[in-house]
Structure formats: C-alpha cells, structure tokens
C-alpha cells in the first residue's frame, strides 16, 4: 500500500514542506562493494543521443513542422510604461496571408503573473511586453503585418533604477508599490551588534552586479496543435508538467486534455521553468484558426522578455577576530526584479550558509522596475551573492594579513549554520586542497614576481561554492522489459542538454544487469511519462535517478521471478548479467528474450518512486575555484589565464558529461565576470543591447585554460544512488575567484561587475583603494 509522508524539499535555496507518496521497498545505497562491479555508472559514457545531436536529427521545438502549420509573431510595447489608448489591427488583418490577429480587443482575459497582469494587458510595464499576436502563412508575412498594427500609447512615468524606485515619489510599477511584498526578506541569527562589538577588525564594501541575460541559443517558443479536444504543445521548456498545469489552468482544460512534449531544447539555464505567454497564445491561435501554430521569439524579444539575472547593489560588512574567526556579518541587497516576479529574489544565500558565523543579519529588497521580469538564472542569487561575500572575505584576509584560503578554513562550517544539522557529506576541504595544488597556490608569490612587468600584473584568487542540489521527491519512473529483451525507461523528466538521458540509461542498465545499448530512455512527454520535477535547481539526477534505479530493481526482481519459473532454476540461484540469466550452479547463460518466446507478449513493468531526503541531515554541494589572471595596466584588459574548478557533488555517474557541465558553468561565469552586461538607457527606459552582437557572451577565443575535477565521493545518506546535482555549482564561484585574482594583481579592488576595461582603467586612475561607495 502506498505510504504518505511529510518531508522538507529544498529548491534554489528555499525550503518547502511537501507530502509525498512512497511506494515499494526502500533501496539500500550502492556501497563500495557494489561500486567495484559497476559496468556503466562512474564510467565515461558518450551521450546515448549524441548521434541525433550531431546529425541534425534531433528535433528541437524550433524544428517542429506540422502539416498546415501557421506562424505567429508578437508585437511588443516600445515604451517602458504605457497604457494602450487605441489599437487597430484592421490593416494587418487585411494583408494577404494573415489568418488571425489576437490582442486585448478580441482575446479572452486570462490572468497572468498571479493576476498582476493579463495575457493581453492594456497597461504595459516594460518595453518588450506583449501587445498583439499576428498569425500568418509565412514568417515574413507576420513581420509585414506587425508593421501594420496601429497602436496609440499613453506613455506613463517609469523607473528603471531599483534604488530610485524605492524613493518615496518614484513612479509606481504596480499599484501596490515597488517593493515586492512591501518589505524586505530578513534573516537573523545571534546578536549582530554584539558580534560587531566583539570584532577586532571590520571590513565593509558596496558591490554592484549587472543584469545578465541567459541568451539560450534556442529562443523561447511553442508549437500548438489541437487533436480534437486535446491540445498538444511542443514547448522549449525545462518543465513539461508545469507547462501542462499552467496551460490547462489558463484555458480551463482538464489535465488529461493537455499534452506537452519537449524532446530537445537549446538551453534554458532557468529561463524556461514555466509556460510563456507565447505558449498560451499559440494554443489560442491554433484553436481559432483550426491549424497548428508556431510562436517563436526572435533574439531581441528573447533578451527583453524572457528573464534575466537581476542586477544587485549589495552592502556587506564583516567583523572578525584577529585570528580570522568571523563574529558578525551584515548583508543588504537591493535586487532589480523588473516588472514582475514569481518569487522574491535574494543574494544572501551564500552569506547565510557558507561560513560558520554566530551573529548575522541579511536583508533582501526585491524591487519592481519598468524592465523585463527577472527569472531564475543558473544558481539565482548565489552567483551575485558569492561575488560580494567572497570579495569581502579577501578584503578581510588582506586586512588581517592572512592567506585567503586559511581565512576560509578558519570559518569552515562543520554543520549547516541555518539548520544546525550536520551535512551528509562535505567535500569542500578536499576541493580547497586539490584546487590549491592545481593552481600552484603555495608558489603564487614567486610566479607573480617573475611574471609581472612594468605594464602587466599577474594575480591569483579563489572562491568557494555552496549550493543545494539534493533533489528530492516527488519523482517517479517506470521500466518496461519488452519481449525482445530490451528495456524502456519511462520518466516525465526532460534532458535540457545536461546528459539526463545518458545518466538515466547508465543507472537503469546497471540496476537491471542489461547492456547499455538495450536500454532506451523515454522522457519529455506528459502523455506517457510519469511525473518528474522541473529540470532546474540542480535536482534532476538526484530526484529522477533514484526513481529510475528503484523501477529498474523492481523490473529486475520481476524478471528474475518469472525467469526462474520458466527456466526451472531455483530463484536464489538465478541472477542477471548483461541481459542474460545466469544459473549460479551450472554457470549456464540464457538470454532474457528466450523466456518471452514462451510467454508471448508478456511485458514486465517495474515501478519506482523517489524516497524522502533524510530529516536529520543537510544535503549540500560544495566546490572551490581558483583563478590566475594577467591585468594590463595600460589598457585595463583582464586576461584570465587559468581557472581551476574542483567540485563535490556526490557520486559521479558520468565523468565525461560532468566535465562538460563544469566547463560550461565556468565559461558562463567568465562571461558574467568580464563581458556580459545588459545596458539600460535610464532616460528612455530601454534596454540598448538586446542582441548577440551587443551583449557579449564568451566565444571560444575568450576561454582560458580550464582544469575541472570532481571530488568523487558518493553520498549514501543523500539518496540510494549517492548523487547530488552539479548543474549550477560550477557557475557560482567563478566571477568571485576572477575578481579576487584581479584585486590581487592590482593591489586594490574593483567592486563592480563586469570587470570591463573602462572600470579597471578608472580604478587605476583613481589610484587609491575604494570600498565601492563611489561607483555609480
């Protein structure tokens, strides 16, 4: 009988209580004995869907073409804040090839963003907000028609600077005011004042970070198509079940009449965690026209309307004893969440959790402005917060004349400072040690001396990483054994490019005792998949992986039961190896499919569910990164020469694809540190660089020498696979490590990201150390 229990689930640094249903037997963790026998888990495995991805056979949402499919494109507001006075779509509707124009004039009122706005709102709160949808035979005709829509806007006062938005007379983005929930999120422990009184030294700084844009290579979009009363949607999403629920609610449909499919996706990084307006628009347009409708965003829309990492202004103050022990931390963040927010933003996660510090207070102000809404972006808040915290820690080390690494070890948290629970595993010390060795931390002063010239300075820096990544319930899986001796793994998760299909195949093959090529993983379809959570928060493998193992073990047990009876071998003498029954006594091997010749089309279905996380322990992931940079004093150019990234995320299932994820995180972190920055014109309230020409993501030529390693330590208490997530960890400490290396090279700090040549040059000209207050 299914058992219902209450458990705590962590997602992107926040904790939620959930009820979960447990089924089946508890699995014992894979221990060291089992490890030694592994055929697939822990071995470098090229992606099982690699051939599809390199031949063009992989169908992304952009590539879905259905008979009679129409194209939909969106008209967007050119003003940062405006009200629609009049909208006339008649000229557009008359253009040959145009099938439908949807706008506030003729579309149903569908609440959006928790009722703060609607699918087609007459009040528009940022430049880029949706005004109308044109549906036509060809893409080009859509663009012609968009030009023919006449809209009269009444421009309204606007604000794009979050600090100004908090001033009493600032234009209001929403009637309820510009501060989300009317108050900051505050966290406190100990006695902050007492903590600062006890301190021998205090350091303080003001850090500024930019808005960063995801720029997934595949822009957001959907293809919608009605099969009778059933809506089928291909959506470029990280959460097929979430899109299903959202669309069903928006259109008043039962869940079993909405099918969401996502097989391949060109990047998400947190920006595709939910359905977009484009999804619902495509569904509405498909119903009205009776034809499949594709709505895709172009690169400009992508960069205006699909999310961003919020900009921050962070004030950080640390107090410490002479020996380096922290006595107090105060951290205040103002975060620019744009026009809408699904949840409060926060930059204080690492401050609360990374170091053992008894007296602490954090305040996070999520501020509405007339800019595109923020969204999760790979380790939301932690990238921004780690930059400030780890920069300040280096300033503290400098003031105390301590080695930055030593200072961190002095404040090493042996238990989680928020929950006071011990960790299941914590490999941060190992990461520090290995990283220091790989970058040559001990010999850095010698290298700096020999390498630095009159015009070039070399510097070393490091930073630490903490993140969740425990995964958790609910997540389910089925494993079918087919009559030909192949296996089909069925889950409702999605592979967003991280290698989920491959890792799940490795786990299933291992648990089944089947060759890998006989295991196929099906995912990305709500119609036949069983629920899996969104692919975000570094939670996919640790959530879905254990469910797949459980389902495979169940299928294997059933197969052995049936096999023993058909082959007339006692159950305790029969085992499975590489897709064959093995009789322990005779050593005789019988291919699995043999028994099905007698059983006709009997199909075994194994079921598995993800169990709860331990209640008395904290599950976290850790890592350390080290950077070596060269700064040109004449040009201000920062050249990152080497990044060493060492992370602990439990057991490594696939060392090949995990290295790809580590590289990818570091490279996105590098862009955030040096070149990426959304630029806004505060006088006009517009984003001025919403293209890939002007928003600078790293190219291959920007990439330094990267050394990426895992501290491979299975975490058996976390879940029966011993795995934790790794998607987000590698981006977290990169910018902080680079900023610390630049400060080491210059002898003073630049308090603002990205570290562009103009900022470095201005800091050089100013000459004297600053605490960041004069950055404007």
């Amino acid at each position, binding site marked *: 009988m299914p058992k219902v229990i209450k458990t705590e689930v962590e997602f992107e640094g926040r904790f939620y209580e959930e009820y979960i249903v447990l089924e089946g037997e508890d699995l014992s963790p894979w221990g060291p004995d089992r490890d030694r026998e592994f055929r697939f888990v822990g071995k470098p495995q*090229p*992606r099982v869907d*690699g*051939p*599809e*991805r*390199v*031949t*063009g*056979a*992989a*169908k*992304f949402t*952009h*590539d879905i*073409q259905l008979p009679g499919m129409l194209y939909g494109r969106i008209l967007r507001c050119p003003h940062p804040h405006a009200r629609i006075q009049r909208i006339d779509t008649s000229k557009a509707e008359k253009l040959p090839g145009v099938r439908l124009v949807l706008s506030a004039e003729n579309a149903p009122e569908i609440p959006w963003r928790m009722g703060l706005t609607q699918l087609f709102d007459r009040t528009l709160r940022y430049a880029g907000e949706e005004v109308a949808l044109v549906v036509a035979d*060809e*893409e*080009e005709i859509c663009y012609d028609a968009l030009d023919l829509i006449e809209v009269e806007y009444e421009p309204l006062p606007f604000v794009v600077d979050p600090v100004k938005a908090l001033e009493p007379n600032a234009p209001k983005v929403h009637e309820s005011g510009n501060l989300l929930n009317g108050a900051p999120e505050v966290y406190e422990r100990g006695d902050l004042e007492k903590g600062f009184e006890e301190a021998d030294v205090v350091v303080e700084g003001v850090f500024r970070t930019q808005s960063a844009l*995801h*720029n*997934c*290579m*595949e*822009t957001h979009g959907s293809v919608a198509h009605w099969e009778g009363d059933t809506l089928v949607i291909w959506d470029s999403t990280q959460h097929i079940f979430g899109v299903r629920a959202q669309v069903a609610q928006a259109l008043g449909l039962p869940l079993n009449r909405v099918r969401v499919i996502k097989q*391949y*996706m*060109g*990047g998400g*990084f947190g920006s595709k965690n939910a359905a977009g307006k484009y999804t619902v628009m495509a569904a509405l347009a498909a119903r009205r026209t009776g034809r499949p409708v594709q709505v895709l965003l*172009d*690169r400009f829309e992508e960069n205006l309307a699909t999310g961003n990492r919020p900009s921050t202004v962070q004030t950080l103050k640390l107090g410490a004893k002479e020996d380096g022990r922290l006595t107090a931390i105060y951290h205040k963040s103002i975060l620019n969440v744009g026009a809408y927010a699904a949840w409060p933003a926060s930059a204080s996660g690492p401050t609360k959790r990374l170091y053992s510090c008894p007296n602490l207070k954090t305040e996070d102000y999520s501020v509405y402005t007339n800019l595109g809404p923020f969204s999760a972006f790979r380790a939301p808040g932690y990238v921004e917060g780690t930059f400030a915290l780890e920069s300040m820690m280096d300033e503290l080390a400098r003031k105390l004349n301590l080695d930055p690494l030593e200072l961190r070890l002095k404040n090493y948290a042996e238990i989680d400072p928020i929950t006071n629970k011990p960790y299941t595993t914590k490999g941060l010390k190992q990461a520090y040690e290995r990283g220091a060795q790989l970058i040559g931390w001990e010999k850095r002063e010698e290298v700096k001396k020999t390498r630095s010239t009159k015009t070039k300075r070399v510097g070393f820096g490091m930073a630490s990483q903490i993140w969740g990544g425990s995964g958790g319930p609910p997540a389910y899986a089925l494993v079918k054994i087919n009559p030909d001796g192949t296996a089909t793994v069925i889950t409702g998760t999605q592979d*967003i*490019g*991280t*290698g989920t299909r491959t890792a799940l195949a490795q786990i299933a093959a291992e648990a089944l005792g089947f060759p890998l090529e006989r295991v196929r993983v099906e995912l990305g379809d709500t119609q036949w998949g069983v629920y899996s959570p969104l692919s975000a928060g570094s939670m996919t493998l640790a959530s879905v992986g254990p469910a797949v193992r459980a389902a495979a073990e169940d299928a294997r047990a059933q197969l052995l039961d049936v096999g023993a009876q058909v082959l007339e071998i006692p159950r305790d003498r029969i085992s499975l190896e590489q897709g064959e029954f093995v009789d322990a006594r005779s050593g005789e091997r019988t291919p699995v499919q043999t028994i099905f010749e007698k059983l006709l089309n009997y199909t075994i279905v194994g079921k598995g569910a993800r169990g709860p996380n331990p209640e008395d322990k904290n599950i976290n992931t850790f890592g350390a990164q080290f950077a070596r940079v060269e700064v040109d004093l004449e040009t201000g150019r920062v050249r990152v020469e080497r990044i060493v990234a060492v992370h602990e995320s439990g057991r490594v299932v696939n060392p*090949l*694809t995990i*290295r*790809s*994820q580590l*590289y*990818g*995180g*570091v*490279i*996105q972190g590098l862009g955030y540190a040096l070149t990426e920055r959304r630029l806004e014109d505060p006088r006009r309230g517009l984003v001025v660089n919403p*293209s*890939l*020409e002007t928003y600078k*993501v*790293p*190219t*291959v*030529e920007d*990439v330094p020498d*990267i050394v990426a390693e895992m501290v491979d330590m299975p975490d058996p208490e976390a879940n029966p696979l011993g795995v934790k997530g790794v998607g987000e960890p590698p981006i977290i400490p990169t910018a902080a490590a680079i900023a610390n290396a630049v400060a080491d090279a210059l002898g003073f700090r630049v308090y603002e990201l990205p570290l562009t040549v103009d900022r470095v040059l201005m800091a050089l000209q100013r000459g004297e150390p600053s605490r960041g207050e004069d950055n404007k």
Partner: protein
Amino acid sequence: MAKALEPRVQSAQLPSIRGPERVPLTLNVNGRTFSLSVEPRRTLLDALRNDLGLTGAKKGCDEGTCGACTVLLDGKPVYSCLLLAVECQEHEIETIEGLARDGKLHPVQEAFVEHDALQCGFCTPGQILSVKALLEQNPEPTEEDVKRAVSGNLCRCGAYPHIVEAALAAAKKLKS
C-alpha cells in the same frame, strides 16, 4: 565567412527575382537538386528549414552573429541567415544532414560524440560544419586554427574546450 558572392549574370533561363511574388528557384543541397518557389526576400536559412525541411541549421539570431545557421557554400562556411536563397542558385550547399553516409557518421561528427563536444546540441550542426570546412582546407590545424575556425559559432552551454579537443581528434583520425 566567405566573401560576398560573385555577381551572377542574369541568363535567359533564370527567373526574375524582383518579387514581391514568389519565384521559382533551384537549389543544390547535399548533392541533390531541389526546385522550390519562394519570395526573393527569403533567406537561405528559411528556405532550407521551412521549404526543404532541413532543420539541422538553426536560427539563433537571424542577423549573422551566433553561427547556429552555418552551412557550407562551395565548401566554405557561411551564415545562411545572411544570404538570400535566390543568391545561392548554382552553388553547392552542404548542410549537416549531408554529412553522414549510409548511416555512418562523418569523422568530425564521431569526434563530437566521443569527446562530448556539445551539451544542448543547438549550435552543434554549425560547429561541426565549421570544423569540417577547416579540416578540408587545413588537415593539420593547430589549436589556434581550430579556435579561429569556430570563433563565429557561439555555444552558450560552453562546450568550447571539448569542441577544440574533438576537432583536433577528428583531424588526426582523418589523416590516418
């Protein structure tokens, strides 16, 4: 990027490409000839994707910055979003769909799988074609040569180190 296409003399057999109406057009793609009818303003990328169903070339920016639409035109990598389909008649066009032969991957494709030179895979067809063009021109590239060859192909997942690795491995494999 290839240089601008040589201006072609308008011969009597070739249709007018003034527009705005659709014009008949012949494209030579992956060694086969296709007749289609498109508006003259249609890009090569849209013609490949929407008219010929060859969706391996992707639209990432539609303005010649991301490289996801890279195809080979007479063996040279081009951004197909920056060319009009009508300019590409009488040229040999090669897309990612033309690389594998009889179900066997091209050595560059093989190397991309083996070295995991991709994550989401959206930019991958473009990366592979840029590498293929390089190796045909320069069978013994240095790391710097590879980087230059794929510097016009953005990868947001950050597969770059593995892409360089794969390209060098493919060069070795092709030589032996």
